[in-house]
């Protein structure tokens, strides 16, 4: 397996950018949240690419911890969204302006 690390990192950058575009352009809070997960995954890919290129396990350990944090974050975020939907009846982030000054 001789894929140059640059190509792995470029794929990681492309996926991260698509995630950023989704967060900026989409209006549905759940889809925005999915794009955040996509960004986390692209960073994981970068870590694994470096770990494979450097014969190191540090990247793998980081990915492990990122996975756990992402799981915790998904649980809390979705619970918050369920609560927002109960109170406001919508998940359109243009209408959720409670914290806007």
């Amino acid at each position, binding site marked *: 397996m001789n894929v140059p690390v640059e190509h792995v990192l470029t794929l990681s950058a492309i996926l991260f950018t698509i995630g950023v575009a*989704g967060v900026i*352009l989409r209006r549905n809070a759940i889809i925005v949240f999915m794009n955040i997960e*996509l960004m986390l995954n692209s960073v994981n890919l970068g870590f694994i690419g470096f770990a494979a290129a450097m014969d190191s396990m540090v990247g793998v350990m980081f990915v492990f911890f990122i*996975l756990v944090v992402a799981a915790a974050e998904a649980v809390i975020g*979705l619970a918050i*969204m369920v*609560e927002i939907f109960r109170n406001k009846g919508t998940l359109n982030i243009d209408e959720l302006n409670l914290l806007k000054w």
Partner: protein
Amino acid sequence: MEVFFYLFAVLATVGAVSVLLIRSPVYCALALVGTFFCLAAIYVLLSSEFVAAVQLLVYAGAIMVLFLFVIMLLNLKSDQPFALKFSIPKIIGLAVTVGILAQLIGVLNSPAAKVGPSGEYTIERVSAEGATEVVGRLLFTEYVLPFEIISILLLVAVIGAVVLAKRYVASGEEESG
């Protein structure tokens, strides 16, 4: 072997773009599951089988099922046509995005990001000892403190989710819970 990397890279990108463009949240979630599968395949190609398995179990399995549960629970009307009608904020957002991509690719291909094999866990050694065994041993020796901390983090997240999702009863009513 390399051809598989590029195949899965293209598939992952297609899935990600679908997440960006598809209107229905359910189909978005399914496209994201496809992307996660492709990433897991790439992890296998990069000889991180353990991470690939965890990726499938935790991301493609647990997290995306949670997403689908919430989407179906909330019965979202599929949101107003995303349609590429370009308003000023969207154009600015796209410009920022392209700038981020150029910056990222520039940085990642700069000489500073050039790395060579410098660690001690070569592919031969890891596959001789078993990837999972190596990860497990590191987890309980060198990384035992972060390991304990994330276990507490998970506990906090579980309690937080229960507290958040609990339906509040107006004070004054008899029953609680």
